[in-house]
């Protein structure tokens, strides 16, 4: 598609990129293309194509491959113009339940992502600047959720904060009536933070570790305090991994299902849960598709940030 390709940064640091040591041969390029093709085809067929199909369905194009689902589903708006109809979107965007869910989804995503990145930065910086047993213990702890299937984690968190859970038990022993957090958005946020923490910590601390110690020493020698060193030297130098961690965390949370399904209230809950409700329980697949595209829209905004961060880093490394 494009001829000005950026080579992987790792490649440039360790080895000369492809095509420099040897002349670019047409055969080799073709081999590379065809080796890379299978996963792309898989995604084109089972991700790209269904998305196009479902978008057609969401705007009321119920013919062709959409015929089966349009017959099974209830409350399907059919196209009244050649390009389709916005009736399903109109229905959902005037639906109080959907708008409430949308708001909840955005709030949970913002709060959880901010908390995750804050914790990951704190742990990563502590590991980088202080080191020692305490720091290793902290980062080890933060990785634990990676070992636990999300289904179990959600359920464990639900029981921990439930009416007869640990927190309420401990406070009851002191005669304090602690609020029940189970089935509220509080546990959804707690669960989202819990499950997203390992990836963010791995990503952020690996980024922070690669900031050269000499740079930090130099900043300190120049008289910068701890905070100043962190804000204007360390964090900017690890910006790309931090942005990657932020985007992946946010995308994971915005579309999450298991955590809010287990720990959240019936309504309003996050869009992932309601999407599944509309699809299975209410048998309104078109409305479900509208929700999916709303979430896609939010996610693609976040994804654009990720792609931009990667391009930027590729460009920077290319100049270096």
């Amino acid at each position, binding site marked *: *598609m494009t001829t000005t390709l950026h080579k992987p940064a790792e490649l440039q640091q360790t080895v000369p990129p492809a095509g420099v040591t040897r002349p670019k041969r047409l055969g080799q*390029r073709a081999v*590379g293309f065809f080796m*890379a093709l299978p996963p792309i085809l*898989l995604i084109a067929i089972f991700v790209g194509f269904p998305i196009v199909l479902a978008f057609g369905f969401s705007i009321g194009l119920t013919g062709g491959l959409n015929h089966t689902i349009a017959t099974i589903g209830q409350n399907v708006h059919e196209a009244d113009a050649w390009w389709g109809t916005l009736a399903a979107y109109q229905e959902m965007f005037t639906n109080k339940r959907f708008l409430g869910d949308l708001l909840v989804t955005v709030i949970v995503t913002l709060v959880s992502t901010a908390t995750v990145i804050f914790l990951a930065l704190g742990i990563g910086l502590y590991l980088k600047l202080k080191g020692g047993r305490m720091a290793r213990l902290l980062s080890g702890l933060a990785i634990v959720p990676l070992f636990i299937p999300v289904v179990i984690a959600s359920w464990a968190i639900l029981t921990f904060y439930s009416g007869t859970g*640990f927190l309420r038990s401990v406070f009851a022993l002191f005669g304090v009536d602690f609020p029940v957090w189970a089935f509220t958005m509080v546990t959804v946020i707690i669960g989202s933070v819990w499950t997203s923490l390992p990836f963010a910590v791995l990503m952020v601390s690996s980024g922070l570790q690669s900031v050269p110690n000499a740079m930090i020493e130099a900043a300190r020698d120049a008289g910068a305090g701890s905070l100043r060193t962190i804000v204007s030297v360390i964090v900017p130098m690890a910006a790309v991994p931090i942005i*990657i961690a932020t985007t992946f965390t946010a995308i994971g949370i915005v579309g999450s299902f298991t955590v809010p399904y287990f720990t959240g209230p019936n309504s309003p809950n996050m869009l992932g849960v309601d999407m*599944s409700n509309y699809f299975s329980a209410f048998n309104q697949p078109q409305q479900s598709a509208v929700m999916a595209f709303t979430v896609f829209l939010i996610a693609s905004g976040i994804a654009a940030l990720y792609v931009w961060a990667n391009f930027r880093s590729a460009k920077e490394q290319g100049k270096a």
Partner: protein
Amino acid sequence: MAITAASRTRRPLTLDSIVRSALVGLFVVLMVVFILGPLLWLGVRAFAGNWTFPNLLPDDWTLRWWQVVVNDGALGIAVQNSLFFAPLTVLVSAIICLPAAYAFARFDFPGRRFFLISLFATNAFPKMGLFVTLAALFYALNLMNTVLGILVVHVLGTVVFMTWIPAAAFAAVPRNLEEAARDAGASKLRVFASVTLPMALPGIIVAAVMSFLASFDEAQGTYLVGAPAFMTMPTQMYSLVLNYPTQVAAVFSILLAIPSVALMLAAHKHILGGQLAEGFQIK
């Protein structure tokens, strides 16, 4: 007060440093409760008889719930299904993705960047939304409630791991080592088998572990596409939590966590060593 190299080696015991240590200690305690608390609370439940609120431990202990799980046919089938789909997913995913990973690392071809970004698209689109859109196609192709349909859902969830992480691992193999082997007279295949592959193996193992777990833990898509014809361990958890005593779900949770914990412990050195983080920085 700035932390300098000197103060790190011999720090005077000031009020400032005591407060700081106390705050760090408090944070660690909170993190322990936050991360490990729910797991321990759940673990204890699997061996609990009666449990009176607000006691911190059960009134009596029993192994009865383990027997319930072992004797329950539906739960056994779920275990079998999970152990069937997970290895199959890893195998299929490896066959599809590993050659592509090598190509991304070693060849420069038209559309390379476009391909990498489209791979990312599977991760950028929220899973539940994808499954809802996929369902329309599955209805049309008669893939609902079929092994192939579930396999497709599981493999889709592993493509990013199986491509990116091994690609970064292949890219990190020094090219001059391969060339030295070529100069010594080794064939291309020989070089790949005895130089490139062994050096990239940790990355491939991490990818395989992550893929196995992605399949083993996949719940939402399997539920939407496979339930109730094919219940795996995680989808069984959905109904378990509603229909069984909490202790049974606790036992089942422990069983479900065993493979994850075992695999992660086996590969944790590579995962913490940056293979995972490396793989997610595609360029």
